[in-house]
């Protein structure tokens, strides 16, 4: 699906570490491919404390899908009186995308966050563990869950190459931040339709750190 995704440009990237995950995106919003009309268009959206979504593709669909997801997750959480689980969320997103199989939303989402797993420890207490969870989708809802990194957007091929080379598993938050930032910055240098600023969010079970990266403004 060639040039419709290049209309606005943009890319998203997610990586996992030891007890932490990170999601990053560029901040460019293009128009008709080569005109840049905003350098402040984030593609990362918080769904709840443990689910973050990165949406790259046609900007109108990015905004619409975000609103649809916000609607669905709020309704679910109110009706069921429970925080939505990340696997449930990915199933829901997949169904939403497939429901428009023949007139698709031109977005390629990624979902980054933690899966909450309940175990009982030696004393019989229920213990929560947060397992890093990454999934990438195509525009019609095919899920692919991985445990290392997920990429999507016009810069995905460059990002794949860089992540394959630079990714180190089980890094801590600081190492993960460095790795994801370097992958993103190097990829943005090689694509004219992404760039103009970048931001990175590093998530741990109890906090989120958001940083803006200084990039080449071209």
């Amino acid at each position, binding site marked *: 699906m060639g040039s419709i995704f290049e209309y606005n440009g943009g890319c998203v990237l997610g990586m996992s570490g030891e007890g932490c995950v990170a999601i990053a995106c560029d901040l460019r919003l293009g128009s008709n491919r080569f005109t840049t009309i905003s350098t402040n268009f984030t593609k990362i959206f918080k769904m709840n404390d443990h689910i973050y979504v990165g949406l790259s593709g046609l900007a109108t669909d990015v905004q619409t899908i975000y609103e649809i997801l916000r609607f669905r997750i709020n309704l679910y959480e109110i009706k*069921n009186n*429970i925080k939505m689980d990340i696997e*449930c969320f*990915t*199933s829901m997103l997949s*169904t939403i995308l497939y429901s428009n199989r023949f007139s698709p939303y031109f977005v390629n989402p990624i979902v980054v966050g933690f899966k909450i797993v309940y175990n009982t420890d030696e004393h019989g207490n229920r213990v929560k563990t947060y397992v890093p969870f990454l999934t990438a989708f195509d525009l019609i809802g095919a899920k692919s869950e991985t445990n290392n990194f997920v990429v999507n957007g016009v810069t995905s091929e460059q990002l794949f190459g860089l992540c394959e080379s630079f990714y180190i598993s089980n890094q801590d938050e600081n190492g993960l931040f460095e790795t994801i930032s370097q992958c993103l910055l190097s990829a943005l240098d090689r694509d004219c339709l992404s760039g103009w600023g970048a931001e990175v969010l590093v998530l741990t079970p109890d906090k989120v750190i958001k940083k803006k990266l200084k990039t080449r403004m071209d």
Partner: protein
Amino acid sequence: MTDGHYSFSLTTFSPTGKLAQIEYALNRVSSSSPALGIRAKNGVILATEKKTPNELIEKNSIYKIQHITDHIGMVYAGMPGDFRVLLKKARKEAMIYSLQYGNEILVKELVKEIAAVVQEFTQSGGVRPFGLSLLICGTDIYGYHLYQIDPSGCYFNWLATCIGKDYQNNLSFLEKRYSKDIETEDAIHTAILTLKESYEGVMNEHNIEIGVAYNNKPFKILTPSEIKDYLIELE
């Protein structure tokens, strides 16, 4: 739902504020075979009398207790035809939820959906209310649940309840014997004793049905031989 000339609701208020059709539907329920449900400490059960109208009917073809999903079961007191409609609707709703969210529907949510359908039929054109009360029991992440839906569309969360014929007597019988930390095995015994109270004739493993969900296992409908074991224990 409406077809032809009846675009007005056939269920209308009386001057005293009652809906006569719903009262009559409740009468229909109170003259039907009894069913009961008990929520135990580690499980929840449903039990019902299964009297066939005639000796010649193939007993294995009639099931009053049915699965909605692996983890949720349902029984009724009232009209079997209406039950099949609600059962089909309930199964579909549960599957639609699983399809969208990838996990099992919460019992309360399913009950709300079915109750909404039952209520629709009290406020639509050309239709009559459902002539049955439902008992729905199941397990989900919040634990074990027992709900009743009556013909008006109200739903109630019960610890233990009876519906159908002689339900008042059966309910008092149950109240005396119920405690919050009753075990599932005891609950099954209590259920059988309650059914025996109002049973005319000899109760055997072919004319009662019992469904059990306990220890987080799926909802299971007991086979006649399993029921026979419980009946023998109570001799």
